[in-house]
């Protein structure tokens, strides 16, 4: 029988605690704005956040709210509500959770603090089908207008052709027009400036990554996932830059003192797939073996792959279009696979953990490709098992830990043989 023993992740860094505070403050701000009569946007998919910040728009993000609910182990109830509305278990748990929050008649106090109804929905099919469908139900339910941005998939690799950039930049302009039509004012000067801030943030993130590449690593993915919040939700803002500057400072100090997350670092792991948001302590679980999960693939969403030199503040929409389309999560596969192979090498990873969230249309499809590529290129093994990082009802603690035990033990055994 499945047991449900969950623990929060153990963070090691002061700055990630500060980021946690910034997240709470953000949601309080959204709630206040709504109470003050300001319109609120719901955003689905990886719509470049810079356009929202340039309008000072209060936004609820599909990628974030369910994760907050999940971290408080409340996701099951809301996912269930969406299932009662006819959404089968086959479709994304994030979307079911968000839909459940949207239709819930009474929300528990934690969600109540975060939840506001939408006045406009801005959705994009980047990176998956769920993003482009589930919002339609919410729009209907809340009788709310929406704008849909169509993102071409990436069939070009690292060089996105001008006609694709032009198309997505046009979609962004459409989103801006729609925002303006519904009471938001997008400040184009601020948008231009945000490109510089995004570039700066990315430069800092790369430096943060460089610190994490050192052995022992001063930061595991437990902090990394919280630290990715500014990367995903605050690009183009001074707050994002400031938080990363502080984080970098803290990490540099730890690197200098050779202070690792664990004392005797024996194994370095990477996580591919949705993290267990309701049980982040699972990352710490492997530490008893001297193993540390150094990095997660989700930390690269919305920002991991772009070349900052291609971002031009004079052309903000084109720059954002480029950044969005080249993102590793935008199918098809080459950027994702190359990026993971490169990360495995640079972070000196000994083993990759691939978790399959069955209701995700995107990430499980990469498992075999990534596994083969990292093995072929780097000789690094991957362990793949089922774990739905959001739907706590699906979680089986005993099996998940047994999977981790056997993988880590086999990695240690092979290290001993070397």
């Amino acid at each position: 029988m499945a047991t449900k023993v969950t623990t929060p992740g153990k963070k090691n860094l002061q700055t990630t605690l500060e980021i946690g505070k910034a997240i709470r403050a953000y949601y309080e701000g959204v709630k206040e704005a709504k109470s003050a009569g300001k319109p609120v946007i719901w955003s689905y998919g990886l719509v470049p956040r810079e356009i929202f910040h340039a309008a000072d728009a209060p936004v609820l993000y599909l990628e974030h709210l369910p994760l907050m609910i999940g971290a408080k182990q409340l996701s099951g109830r809301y996912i269930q509500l969406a299932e009662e509305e006819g959404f089968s278990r086959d479709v994304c748990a994030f979307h079911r959770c968000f839909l459940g929050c949207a239709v819930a008649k009474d929300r528990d106090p934690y969600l109540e603090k975060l939840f506001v109804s939408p006045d406009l929905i801005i959705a994009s099919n980047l990176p998956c089908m769920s993003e482009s469908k589930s919002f339609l139900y919410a729009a209907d339910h809340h009788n709310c207008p929406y704008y849909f941005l169509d993102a071409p998939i990436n069939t070009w690799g690292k060089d996105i052709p001008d006609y694709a950039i032009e198309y997505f930049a046009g979609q962004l302009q459409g989103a801006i027009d729609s925002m303006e039509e519904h009471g938001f004012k997008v400040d184009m000067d601020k948008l231009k400036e945000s490109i510089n801030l995004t570039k700066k943030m990315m430069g800092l993130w790369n430096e943060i990554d460089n610190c994490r590449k050192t052995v022992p690593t001063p930061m595991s993915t437990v902090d990394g996932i919280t630290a990715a919040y500014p990367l995903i939700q605050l690009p183009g803002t001074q707050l994002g830059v400031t938080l990363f500057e502080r984080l970098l400072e803290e990490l540099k100090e730890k690197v200098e003192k050779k202070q690792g997350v664990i004392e005797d670092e024996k194994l370095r792991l990477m996580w591919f797939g949705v993290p267990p948001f309701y049980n982040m302590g699972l990352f710490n679980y492997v530490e008893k073996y001297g193993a540390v999960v150094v990095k997660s693939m989700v930390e690269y969403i919305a920002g991991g792959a772009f070349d900052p030199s291609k971002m031009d503040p004079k052309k903000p929409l084109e720059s954002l279009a480029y950044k969005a389309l080249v993102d590793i999560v935008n199918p098809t596969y080459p950027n994702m696979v190359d990026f993971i192979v490169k990360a495995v090498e640079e972070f000196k990873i000994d083993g990759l953990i691939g978790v399959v969230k069955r209701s995700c249309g995107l990430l499980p499809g990469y498992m075999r490709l990534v596994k083969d590529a990292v093995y072929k290129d780097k000789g690094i093994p991957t362990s793949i098992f089922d774990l739905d990082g959001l739907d706590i009802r699906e979680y089986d603690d005993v099996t998940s830990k047994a999977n981790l035990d056997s993988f880590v033990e086999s990695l240690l055994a092979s290290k001993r043989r070397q």
Partner: protein
Amino acid sequence: MGTLETMKDIFDNPNKIIEEWKKDGRKVVGHRCMYVPEEIIHAAGMLPYPTFGTPEPIKKADSYFQPCACEFVRNLFDLALDKKFGFLDSMVLCNTCDAVRHLYNMWDTYVDSVPCYMVNNPQKMYDESGFKFYRMELEKFKKLMEDLSGNKITDESLKKSIELYDETRKLLKELNDLRKRDIPAISGSEFLVTSMASMLMPKEKANPLLRKLIDEVKNREIKNADGPRILLTGSIIDNPTLIELVEDMGGVVAVDDLCTSAKYFWYTTKPNNDPMDAIVRFNLERTLCACAHPSEDRYDYLQELIREFNVDGIIYFNIKYCHPFVYESAIFRKKLEEEVPTLTLEVDHSLSGLGQLKTRVQAFIEML
């Protein structure tokens, strides 16, 4: 042999078509969606060949895909790994659902014998900037087809191909209209077989056969036509078994909205002096699939089918993990139910668990 039997024979033995086509050294290009512009392939002198699955259990593909990928795609990939598509000179996919995007990833990585190409079509309809983007993509695709075939595609040849394919669509629609009658002239399962055979065949052959068939059946009345009239929709159905099941339970499958049937022929290309532009607009001015936007358009189209075919009930057959239709059926359910009763069923592409399905379909038909 009557023409219906001829169609069934073609459906059962598509290899014959391939062999005949390849006799003169001509090439065959496989694809998997009505959004792949067959006319461009044809204008290059090649046979566009829609790939379908088989109900056989999956053997090799499950070690590549996780079980949560739609079974239809896993089945196609299994056939590809098994070299069952070895006769193809190329495979073409287009940007539709997550599963097809992964089929491209897998095919491109693991199937060496048949190269795979992805047409990057927008998912948003009626958007002028999307037309421009798609035109660029189609020009690339046209060049690829020219290189593959060694034939230049001229405006003239493309116009002729468009005409030919539109003729097939018109004829299929004419035949489909015979299902509007109180007692349809052709059953749902017969129609699916005919439609799929016509999709598989060179259109030069399909069109005269369809004309003959319309002539043969236009005064016909199917047996067992007193049951409720059903609209079938949902994921791809590439085998008449599910339709036969509904018919066996007493339903009359009056119309379907499947990509092996109505979706394929519902619209024809609008006249346009520039044939590439005609194709761009043809593909981006119809929201026939749940993958495309705006979905309101698809809802209107279902309404049209309900009205025109006098539908009493709707059945969604959704392949497990087929996200576009699993979402759509949940999104449309309440609204549709205000019009006609709607049943949503989850099916395996391999058609396992037919017994349980039968019970649910039977209960639904009795309720109607």
